[in-house]
């Protein structure tokens, strides 16, 4: 036990580390461990060993990535689940190791270089051999890449050793180049780029069009056209001969197309020019040659020549450019901060502003905001000057970038230029400028945006501050109130409290007394709170009315207890009416006195109720109790409504002179009505009576009125 700490090693004052043996082991391997690839799993998991592959590459088939691995003479195909041994078809025997492998740009083809100096070329699926070649060089090549061209049937592989470059394909011979310097190969879509310390070259299969035109003694239409144009410039009649020759074969269109296409594949502007000149010359003799291809080629070449310039240094070929698209090329220029060139290209190609100039300017602005040594003012101004109101520029994106660089103030300044409030708000929130965000949201008129900010503020601020913020923003306040009314009643109350808005607080409690409270005590208590609030709001009318309602509620409750029936929540008027209809006249009168119901109302009320009861005796007694404050015409009307002409007539006689005629007409006494009207000498009344005269029965009356009228006119 004494030696227990023997393998403890101190580290610092308080910690020890130790290392002890798990197993003694011996591997059943020929190689040393350092020649192997080792993979081990944690948690005491298994350990895997594999001798290091001599070479490997990634294959891509059906959107799945595989790894092709060469170990000694064997090839393995690995995917995410399995490892299987494969054999390329038609592989020459005697291979003991693979030294290099290369996949083509399109992932369709595979080339294998073996230690016997043998090159196998086939499909990447390893199902088919295309060709093979024995170069008899056993030294491992430094690099091997495919050199092919889209839509071309030719396949070739470029192999590089230290000082030697070899192009091999489906041919018994190979092409050999000497390399003067250390070189590196870059496979491209349509060829191979080779660069060294002092040169940059391109190796590719000569395109069909160029071949046709420039092949020695070519009689292709393009070649003839080029020749014709050259002769034409020399003012030689041969030009005409060549041209005739092409035209006789009916191949002029083809010739022009060939020249245009070949121009695209030329690197030297001079050569491009002469080909295009030839095309242009040929076009003159064609009736209907669509100009697009020519124009586009000119434009494309101009762009290409610009970016190929050594100052820029993007050596794109025409095919690559077409594959890449102008958008990507512009992106590359932007990434290299070559903004002016990018903009010139956009303008030259007349790209829509949103895709072109605006986008580049926006990128420029995003770069500009990172210039820490320039003041916020200056940056913002510079950006606005350049960008102005260019469509498609999002100031909020630029501001977001500025904020990302920690320049909040600059971001806010930039946001000022953003015309769409919807874009300003989220960033302002992110920058914790919530109040500014709120006013911007309100400006936008988009209530959803305002609401978003409100909820943000609600979480960010304490309740008091939140309410204070709302207070200064009526539009937001009413929006939030609306929400609270439906969803958070308590918050609504707090809001009113905060504002000392006693009027609304009173209304709030009144509403509560109807909606929230069931018991009468609770309702009265709510009303009391309301009344107090109304007093504070100096709204005495509402306070008094509320107190009256409290009294009425209590009283109605008592009535229900004592008399039965339904009284709660009736209006005062209806309460009294119900009492009268129930025959509780005393109580009704008491109530009228208690609540100081005006006489007029009481008369109307009693009149209606008694008539409803058809208690004609009581009605008459009532009518005689004192002089009616509403006159007696209503009595007549109400009796007639109940179809009691007999009673009606009683009151008709008591109707005052102004309404007498009306009353008499109501009870159907046309003749007497006429008399009264004539007596009044009132034209309006006379016509009223006349309109009530029905032909047969009232003929005499009508005559009488007419006579009276005539007399009145005479006077």
């Amino acid at each position: 036990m004494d030696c227990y700490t023997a393998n403890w090693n101190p580290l610092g004052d308080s910690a020890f580390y130790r290392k002890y043996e798990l197993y003694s082991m011996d591997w059943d391997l020929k190689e040393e461990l350092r020649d192997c690839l080792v993979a081990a799993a944690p948690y005491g998991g298994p350990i895997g060993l594999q001798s290091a592959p001599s070479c490997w590459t990634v294959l891509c088939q059906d959107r799945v990535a595989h790894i092709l691995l060469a170990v000694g003479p064997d090839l393995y195909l690995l995917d995410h689940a399995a490892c299987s041994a494969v054999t390329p078809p038609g592989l020459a025997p005697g291979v003991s190791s693979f030294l290099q492998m290369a996949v083509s740009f399109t992932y369709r083809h595979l080339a294998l270089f073996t230690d016997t100096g043998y090159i196998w070329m086939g499909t990447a699926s390893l199902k088919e051999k295309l060709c093979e070649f024995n170069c008899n060089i056993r030294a491992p090549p430094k690099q091997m890449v495919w050199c092919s061209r889209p839509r071309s049937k030719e396949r070739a592989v470029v192999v590089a050793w230290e000082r030697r470059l070899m192009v091999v394909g489906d041919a018994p011979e190979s092409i050999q180049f000497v390399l003067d310097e250390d070189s590196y190969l870059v496979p491209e879509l349509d060829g191979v780029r080779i660069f060294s310390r002092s040169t940059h070259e391109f190796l590719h299969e000569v395109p069909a069009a160029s071949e046709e035109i420039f092949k020695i003694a070519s009689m292709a239409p393009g070649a003839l056209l080029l020749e014709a144009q050259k002769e034409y410039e020399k003012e030689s009649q041969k030009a005409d001969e060549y041209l005739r020759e092409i035209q006789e074969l009916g191949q002029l269109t083809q010739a022009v197309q060939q020249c245009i296409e070949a121009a695209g594949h030329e690197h030297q502007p001079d050569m491009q020019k002469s080909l295009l000149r030839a095309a242009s010359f040929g076009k003159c003799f064609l009736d209907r040659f669509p100009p697009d291809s020519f124009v586009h080629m000119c434009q494309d070449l101009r762009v290409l020549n610009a970016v190929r310039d050594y100052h820029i240094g993007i050596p794109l070929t025409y095919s690559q450019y077409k594959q890449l698209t102008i958008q990507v090329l512009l992106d590359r220029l932007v990434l290299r901060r070559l903004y002016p060139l990018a903009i010139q290209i956009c303008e030259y190609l007349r790209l829509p502003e949103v895709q072109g100039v605006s986008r580049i300017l926006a990128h420029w602005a995003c770069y500009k905001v990172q210039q820490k040594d320039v003041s916020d003012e200056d940056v913002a101004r510079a950006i606005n000057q350049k960008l102005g109101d260019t469509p498609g520029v999002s100031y909020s994106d630029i501001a977001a970038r500025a904020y990302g660089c920690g320049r909040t103030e600059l971001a806010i300044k930039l946001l000022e230029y953003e015309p769409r409030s919807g874009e300003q708000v989220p960033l302002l929130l992110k920058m914790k400028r919530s109040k500014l965000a709120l006013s911007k949201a309100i400006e936008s008129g988009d209530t959803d945006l305002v609401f978003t900010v409100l909820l943000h503020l609600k979480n960010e601020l304490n309740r008091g501050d939140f309410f204070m913020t709302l207070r200064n923003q009526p539009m937001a306040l009413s929006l939030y109130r609306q929400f609270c009314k439906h969803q958070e009643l308590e918050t609504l109350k707090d809001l009113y409290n905060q504002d000392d808005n006693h009027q609304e607080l009173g209304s709030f409690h009144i509403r509560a007394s109807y909606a929230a409270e069931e018991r009468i005590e609770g309702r009265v208590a709510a009303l009391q709170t309301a009344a107090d609030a109304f007093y504070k709001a100096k709204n005495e009318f509402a306070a008094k009315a509320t107190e009256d309602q409290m009294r009425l509620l209590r009283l109605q409750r008592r009535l229900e207890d004592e008399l039965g029936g339904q009284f709660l929540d009736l209006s005062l008027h209806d309460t009294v009416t119900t009492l009268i209809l129930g025959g509780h006249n005393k109580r009704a009168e008491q109530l009228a006195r208690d609540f100081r119901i005006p006489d007029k109302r009481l008369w109307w009320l009693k009149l209606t109720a008694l008539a409803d009861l058809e208690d004609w005796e009581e009605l008459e007694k009532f009518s005689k109790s004192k002089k009616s404050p509403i006159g007696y015409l209503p009595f007549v009307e109400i009796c007639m409504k109940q179809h009691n002409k007999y009673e009606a007539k009683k009151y008709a006689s008591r109707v005052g002179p102004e309404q007498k005629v009306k009353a008499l007409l109501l009870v159907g006494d046309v003749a007497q009505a006429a008399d009264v009207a004539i007596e009044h000498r009132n034209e309006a009344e006379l016509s009223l009576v006349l309109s009530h005269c029905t032909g047969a029965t009232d003929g005499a009356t009508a005559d009488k009125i007419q006579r009276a009228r005539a007399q009145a006119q005479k006077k």
Partner: protein
Amino acid sequence: MAFPHRPDAPELPDFSMLKRLARDQLIYLLEQLPGKKDLFIEADLMSPLDRIANVSILKQHEVDKLYKVENKPALSSNEQLCFLVRPRIKNMRYIASLVNADKLAGRTRKYKVIFSPQKFYACEMVLEEEGIYGDVSCDEWAFSLLPLDVDLLSMELPEFFRDYFLEGDQRWINTVAQALHLLSTLYGPFPNCYGIGRCAKMAYELWRNLEEEEDGETKGRRPEIGHIFLLDRGISVSDVDFVTALCSQVVYEGLVDDTFRIKCGSVDFGPEVTSSDKSLKVLLNAEDKVFNEIRNEHFSNVFGFLSQKARNLQAQYDRRRGMDIKQMKNFVSQELKGLKQEHRLLSLHIGACESIMKKKTKQDFQELIKTEHALLEGFNIRESTSYIEEHIDRQVSPIESLRLMCLLSITENGLIPKDYRSLKTQYLQSYGPEHLLTFSNLRRAGLLTEQAPGDTLTAVESKVSKLVTDKAAGKITDAFSSLAKRSNFRAISKKLNLIPRVDGEYDLKVPRDMAYVFGGAYVPLSCRIIEQVLERRSWQGLDEVVRLLNCSDFAFTDMTKEDKASSESLRLILVVFLGGCTFSEISALRFLGREKGYRFIFLTTAVTNSARLMEAMSEVKA
């Protein structure tokens, strides 16, 4: 007698496209939830939906059963539930209760909420608070414009009025802007824009923003409609414009609306109209030939017209007496159906007229109209006040009483304090104390206020009263308060000649001006403003009016070059009423159009009338 359009009147654009668009979008949304589903529809959306897609169309797209959204547990046993609702919080809570009940019962179904015309963030918030945001899928049915008639588009958003004018909630303005944007994409840009009112201006600006964001789309289009005019229901802070909506309507269509309530372009005529034991739902629009001829007529002409029509019809029927077989065959196959149809419509409208007459005589309509006219002209205020008092005491109708009180308040620039108190007390006694809240709403909206003599006036007053005896001071105070009473309404109606001076009887058969829609007593303010601005093609010279309306900051014009607009399109005017318009206003503008050779198209958030206005302001016990 019915005014035919002038022969040179421009053709109206075809608005049925809007219906097709809405229908296609709805079908698309329904198809997003493949398979059988039950559809829950909010009550308010039922009538508009009915105009867009009937039940058989819904069934074609696998809607199984239809339910109304109401506060009851759903009986649906379907595995997929679809809700078609307005973006309202109470609907969200209803849906949440359904979903949560399912969850408790361990049931999983698919839920889809379709908001019309758009969803609001607040609604999604509630769904989240209720814990069901992840369980439902949300969609928008951007159905905001329903063509009710050839010249009338309605957004069917009656709550716009209360939300904006009472609660200050601006959320619908964006919806309006979207609708205008849709119109300009479908029918070309509007070369001339005019507007007045705070809300109109906001809507206009939002709309402009939308157009700018998506510029290019409408630029090349030829405008089909030459002018657009936006105005608020309550144009000014003092809300004098409410007068129009508060007056009793006497033009046939308005009267039918006031009496029977036209709902989404159709009306339910009860047994008293149909003279059978069934109610009948009738579409009221230009396709109803009889209705089309009387809709804009003053009610006093309608009976005469209908009886004339009946006689003509009889004569046409009678023609068959002298016919031989061949002519008879022709008659039966070609004319009879039309005649029968006309006959049916005729008897319906005669029934409606009778029913209206009956109701109106019972309420002593003449007295009512007389009082209204007195209020408009500002005389016999005392008498009118006691008329209103009696109206309240007799419990004639809570809505009517309220309407008259508001009319009095607006025309008089507020009630004098004594009346303000006593009328309110009477009202509470008659119709229940909960209306205390109604009054608070009305005051906030400026519809029913108390006169506050201006500060300067009170100052002068107190100085003067020191100089004279008490009794005289009382008189002076009266004089001053009547001076203060020279209300905005009076000033504006004088300035714009809203109350035409008539010598003798106003001939309602051959109206001279738009006042005929109120029996010759009043030209609707909104219509007069439109007339004046169109005449000037700007607000120039109307500064005083704009100032009186308190809208100096909210009156705008925007003219673009007119070279693209045809002369035909320049005589088409789209009038946008934010907060609702009445049939009287529509009739008045149709009249103006006939006089001047224009044609008006109406876009309103909803068709309104005095009752709807008052109900929107009322607080009723739940």
